[in-house]
Structure formats: C-alpha cells, structure tokens
C-alpha cells in the first residue's frame, strides 16, 4: 500500500479535529478535537519516518504523546475547575470577558 495514503488520512484527521475545535461548544469536546489533531500529527510523523527510512519521526511521536499527556492533565484541571464554579463546560457561557 502506498504510504502516502497515511499522509492523506493524517491530513483528514487534522482537518476534522480543527473543524471540531471551531464548531463544537463543549470545552471537553473541543479539547478532544485538539487531541485528535495531535494524533494526526503523530500519524504524519510515523509515516514520514517510514518514507525517509530514519527513526526521527518515530521518536518525535513518543515526545508528542508525553506532551499531550501533560496537556491533558493541565487542560482537564482547568476545565473541571471552571465546570465546578459554573456547572457548565460550554464555552458560550464563559463570556464575562468582553468589551
């Protein structure tokens, strides 16, 4: 199978994630879409690694996973905090900061 197909899949997943961030209203779902984008990056890294025949891309995928895990910790902490004080995780409700 042509490895380039995985690149198309990665681009597709990234686009779905980006569209989800822009469209969805729940902070948790938005955050899941960001994670989808990061995983699309991982798929692209691994595919390019196979195309180039070096291991850099696979190693970078591990770094991305660790960074994404750290980001989940911070992100969920912040979202849970705002959910506890507002009883809503909708980003439309978080609108105190306006002109």
């Amino acid at each position, binding site marked *: 199978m042509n490895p*380039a197909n995985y*690149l198309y899949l*990665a681009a597709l997943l*990234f686009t779905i*994630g*980006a569209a989800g*961030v822009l469209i969805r209203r729940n*902070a948790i779902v*938005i*955050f899941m879409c*960001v994670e989808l*984008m*990061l995983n*699309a*990056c991982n798929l*692209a*890294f691994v*595919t*390019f690694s196979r*195309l*180039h*025949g*070096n291991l*850099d*891309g696979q190693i*970078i995928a591990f*770094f*991305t996973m660790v*960074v994404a895990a*750290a*980001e989940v910790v*911070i*992100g969920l*902490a*912040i*979202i849970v*905090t*705002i959910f*506890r*004080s*507002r009883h809503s995780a909708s*980003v439309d409700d*978080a609108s*105190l*900061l306006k*002109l």
Partner: protein
Amino acid sequence: MSHAATVHSLWTAAAAEPPVRIPGPHIEYAQLSPTLIVLGAALLGVLAEAFLPRRVRHHAQLLLTVVGLAAAFAAVIALAAGGYAGDKARIAAMGAVAVDGPALFLQGTILLVGLVAAFTFAERRLEPMAHGRPVDSFAAQGAAVPGGEAERKAVAAGMTTTEVFPLVLFAIGGMLVFPAANDLLTLFVALEVFSLPLYVLCALARRQRLLSQESAVKYFLLGAFSSAFLLFGVALLYGYAGTVTYSGIADVVGGTTRTLDPALASTTGNDALLLIGGAMVLVGLLFKVGAVPFHMWTPDVYQGAPTPVTGFMAAATKVAAFGALLRLLYVVLPGMRWDWRPVMWGVAIVTMLVGAVVAVTQTDVKRLLAYSSIAHAGFILAGVIATTPDGVSSVLFYLGAYSFVTLGAFAVVTLVRDAGGEATHLSKWAGLGRRSPLLAAVFAVFLLAFAGIPLTSGFAGKFAVFKAAAQGGAAPLVIVGVLSSAIAAFFYIRVIVLMFFSEPKAEGPTVSVPSPLTSTAIALGVVVTLVLGVAPQYFLDLAGQAGTFVR
C-alpha cells in the same frame, strides 16, 4: 561443512565481535547551565512545597526563585564573557540547542524579567490581611469553588498558592530553551514547557476568580489549538527535509544538501510540504507573539489573569516567542524569504493598525495595555522583516526595552485599588495625578515609552527597528508603523490627560503603598526606560554584537 556448522560458526563469530555499544549523548552541561539552574530550582521548589511547613513556604520559595534566577543570569553573563556570544558560538546538546549571541541576549533578558516579575508575585501588602495573615494576589486554593465552603476554609487556614513560584520557574525554563532551540522538536517541547505553567498561573487570581478561570480556559484551548498547528507544521517540514534540525532543513531549502534518494523524490524537497509546513509553524509562533489575526486571546487573557502574571506573560512570552521566530526565519527559512516576506508584511501591517485602532476604544487599563502589546508586536515584526543583521539587533534591543516598560506598567496597575480589588476601569483613573502625583508620573513615563516619545526607551527601540526595516527595503512598512504610532500616541496621551487634568471622583480608588518588592520592580522599570532612552548606545552595541546566529 554441514548447514548446522555454518550456522554455528555464525554464532561464534558473532560472539567474538565486541558487543554493539550505543554511544551516550554528549551534553555540554556548562553551556546549558542557565536552563539547568532554573529547572533545578523549579524542582527544588516542588520539593519545598511538599516538605516545608506552610508558614515558611512563602519566604523559602521567594528566596529559592530569586537565587535560582540570579545564578542563571550569572551563568549567562559568564557564557557571554567567555565568548559564546561571538566567535565561540556553537550548537550544544547533540544539535538540540544553540548557544550564540541572540540566544544568550534573550536568555539574559528573560531571566531579568523573571527576577523582577518574581518580586511582583511575592507582593503581600496590597491585599487586606485575611484572618491576620498577609496574602498575595493569588487564590488561597486554586481548586476550591469560588465563594464556596472549601474556599472559606482555605482562607481561614491562611493558605496561599506558593506553587506559583515553581510554576513561574518552569515557565522561565521553557522560555530559556525556546529562543535557543535548534531543532523543531526542541522548539515544540519548549513551547509546551513554558505554556502549560502559564495556563495554570492565569487561573489563580485571588479576586474575580470567575474571570481568571475563564481567561485560563480561553488561553488553554486556543494555545493548545495553535500548538497543534505548530506540531503539524513540524511534521510537514520533517517530511520535506527528512530531518528536524534547523541546519538540515536550511540545507534542503537552499538546495545544498547531498544527493537525494530518488525513492524519496515525492517527499524530500516537495515544495508544497515546505510552504504549508512553514506556514503552520509560523501560525504557532505568531499566536504566541500575539500578532493579528492570531491575537484574539490577548485582551481576554491579559484582563482575566492575575496582574503580576499578566506583566510577566506580556514581557517574557513576547521575548521568547520573538527569539524563536527570528531563529526560524533567519536560520531555517532564509532561502525562501521571497515567499514569507510578503506574508509577514501583511501580518505586520494589520497587527500595527488593528492594535492601535482598537486600543482607542478600550475602557479597561489591562485591555488597553493588551492592545498596545499587539501593536508593539507589529512594530517588532517590522524589524524581523528587515532580514539584515541590523534587523536582528534592533529586535533584540526593542525586546529588552519593551519588556521592562510592560512589567513596570502592569506593576503600577496592581497598586490602584478600591474595595473590589484592582480598579482597572479607566474612568476610575480620572484625577489620579492629583491624588498621588508620583504614581501617576511613573505611569505617564511608561505610557510615553509605549508611545515612543524621545528620551524614553520606546523611542530608541522604535527608531532602531524602523531604521532597520527601511534599510531592509520595507519603507512602506515604516510609514504604516509611524502612522499607527501616531494613533497609539493618541490614546496613551488621553490616559495621561485623564490622570492629570480631570477632577478626581469622590469614591475613586486609592493607591496602596506597596512593600519594597513592587517598589523595586517599578523603580527598575523607570530606570531601564530612562537609561535606554537617554543613553541607548551601549545597549545598541551590545545587541549589535549579539546579533549573529550560529548554524
């Protein structure tokens, strides 16, 4: 010889060879010492948080932070004096980190900014005492629901969030690596290392906690979104060049690389990957810089975050992000400057105009300063576009000058208070010059520096940046820059007029008397502003000497 014997001889021959040794990485600890010291101090801070009794934590953490930052700054000075800013500039840590003039200059700036910001973080005289204990401007317990039972108990127990000091140290550690990163993976990891603590810091205000938490959510979601863009850009550039080191990508861009494998012709050297990848990495960096159209988070986050954090963020993040942007454009992508220069022209022009025009309509001091920081990002971008050595050194100088003005201005904002905490609405600042002339005069100095009036550092910085841009062939950019400076000067002067020439309101805010910590921060801001304005030559020379990137 039988088949089995052949196989056996294979084994024995294999056993006779020395075992394969994987060489360990060679790390130049001395050249990486500024970052290592700061991150080590941050780890000690986490331990202190775990093991020290609560009443001594505040002083211990402050001491640790100040000592760590000062030691790291001394290390930067030692490296610069040892010639690493000049002819001994080199790539350290297996090609991951550059130790050169721009990196050391920006690291020194970030460390000084962090040191001064730590003073404003530790200020405990502004908030009224809680149950007889002095408290700082951070929440008693970040996880407690605002106004809930847990928060009441935390306040009664005299809890304070001393975790802010390790958090700010981790953020500074990431910021030190960010402008020095010499491969795209290090760039990404450093970006996250300095962003994640900042997201948490934004959520920790003592007053107006809902605003603070909201700003943290916005900053986090948009920041994660932009870093995903940056990472996908990194993936595409890796696909383009087959490597993530800056010099390797620059070689492929410049066409000077060794012969390409024909099997890889579809990816290596594929210009679509380069253009899209480069653009996505730029999106990630321009977001951190706060350039239009990626500026939406700036006013909300600056307004909602605790003011000491805002000051730190506005100054240090900008320095680190512009450092990384400079290195990316000057080291990795100089071979395609005819492609990125038009785009950056557009971004710079829109950034300057939007920042200056929208700031005119603002009624909140923190939002006003946020839009002013957007406009300043545009001015600095003008210097970045010059693509000359003068461009680099003028941007370095501007960053150093601007960061101290910003820190000082936000430190002044923490002092003007009424019953609800900081009084940030502009109408409340009316007549402040009559009530406390000294504070108003100091703020006026900062505003004049923002506006770029001669004899302040803002003028020297703007002059250097615009001169470099004009010499780099971006004269229209300079004209737009001067025009938007004029627009910006209007609202800075308006605030000064409001402070000095309007009647103070009866129920107006009072100016709190700070401890020596905040006073030092503000005084340093004024001194740097005036010294860089009156006698900028030494520092311009310093930035000029530091203006060469290593490859």
